[in-house]
């Protein structure tokens, strides 16, 4: 079963990184890279991507005719998708385990950040066996 693990961020969280020491930033980046590599080696990773910051985001609506574009910046407290993993795992418990590990990525002083990770199952096609 596939799950999408969505890492939430806020502008405040991004800016709090300004206080980190270079070594702490390095440790965080290394953790994230190693994490994705391990998932890939375990045969569980489908896709992992980090996203552009919402400062560059646009919200688009179309009702026929030219699309209506709302440019950022959006409210500082607004939560946004910072990045995501899609994993293919045997059980929902395993997806939770993976999300828990990602959430505990190191921050200042090497302490776990506790980043909120939203888990959603990727819907499948029609069931094989009725």
């Amino acid at each position: 079963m596939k799950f999408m693990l969505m890492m939430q961020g806020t502008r405040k969280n991004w800016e709090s990184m300004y206080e980190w020491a270079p070594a702490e930033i390095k440790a965080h980046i290394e953790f994230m890279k190693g994490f994705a590599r391990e998932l890939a080696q375990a045969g569980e990773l489908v896709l992992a991507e980090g996203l552009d910051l919402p400062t560059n985001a646009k919200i688009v609506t179309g009702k026929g005719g030219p699309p209506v574009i709302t440019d950022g910046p959006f409210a500082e407290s607004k939560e946004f998708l910072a990045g995501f993993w899609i994993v293919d795992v045997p059980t929902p418990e395993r997806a939770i385990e993976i999300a828990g590990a990602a959430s505990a990525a190191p921050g200042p002083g090497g302490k776990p950040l506790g980043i909120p990770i939203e888990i959603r199952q990727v819907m499948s096609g029609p069931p094989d066996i009725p």
Partner: protein
Amino acid sequence: MTEEAAAPAIRDLLRDAVPRVLSAVTRRCGDFAAAEDAVQEALLAAHVEWPKSGTPANASGWLYRVACRRVADLLNSEVARRRREQAAAGARATETEPPLADDEVEAMAGDETLLLLFMCCHPTLTPPSAIALTLRAVSGLTTAEIASAFLVPEATMAQRISRAKQTISESGVRFAPPDAAERSKRLDLVLHVLYLMFNEGYVSTSDLRLVRVELSSEAIRLVRVLHRLEPEHPEVAGLLALLLLTDARRPARTGPDGEMIPLHEQDRALWDRAAIEEGTALLMAAFARGAVGSYQLQAAIAALHDEAPSVAATDWPQILALYGLLASMSDNPMVALNRVVAAAMVHGPTTGLERLRTLEADPRLARHHRIAAVRAHLLEMSGDFAAAITAYRAAAAATASLAERHYLVTKAATLEQRRAAT
């Protein structure tokens, strides 16, 4: 064994044979799209058969025969479909020329490769489509390999390639050399597509790919082939030199974890001296022919960097002059930006910052992260750490490259630490 894991010897053999085979099959059936599909299937068959039964003595002949059988099947089913649909009578003949003997295919000249490049780098195609089609039709890569190089699903890549071929056939272009007036324009386009293919490989930073085709090396290989076919063309030589001189720094431009290392922090001992020598020699020979173009100028700038023992010992006045020439040839905002950096290295950061302000008025650059990154760098050079930190952070928030974001964020944090220490 998956097809991506084919032995390198087989892959080399296929790369060499595919352009000849595809040209021969296209000439025989008169349908580039069908021939290209058939050759792809012959290639997949080779990936399965050859490791088991051994490589045939005449690889091109083997591929040609398999592809011809396949193209006959394809066209016959096409004819049948048309009959069923009662479409226009007189469907295309399935065979316009008698089959070639194995050694005739083997002996086909390199002009066929050039013809295929003209076909694949067609003006009606978007660059990503042209690159994908070139990799399949000229480089002899499988759809799966191309998909993995672009990090897209195989079905997406298959569709992109088949749409590209459809666009080409709708344009009514024939599989024949362009006339003299058109030729030079089309050659420029081929160079541009190969340049973009190299860049695609150079900037992609995914470290999750376990098997991947090196787009940059393949682009260099194709430009080499082109240079062999067009040895007198100074811009073909210029592009080959540029790619070699840029690729020479590859071992130094990323750290063990894929982190970005900019030019001024690279360990120059890691640069590939052989590639630098080859690129420089090519460039000198091209310059001697007299028709200076933008690839040669970019190569000359790359050569000056490559020959310098350090950033400080770089011939910046010469680089500044070359950027001036480049800027007079094209209205490229990135050239203008690099010219500012060179001006700062020659005349100091204050001059650089002044010139940067005029560039900021250019709407193509106004929100570009490179403006902020250059400003940050110049402010750091001038000793204004506080303003540099703000600019590094602005650049980090604006870049679409994760590796660059990491670099810029770390840079800001390092300056913050230095500022706190003073």
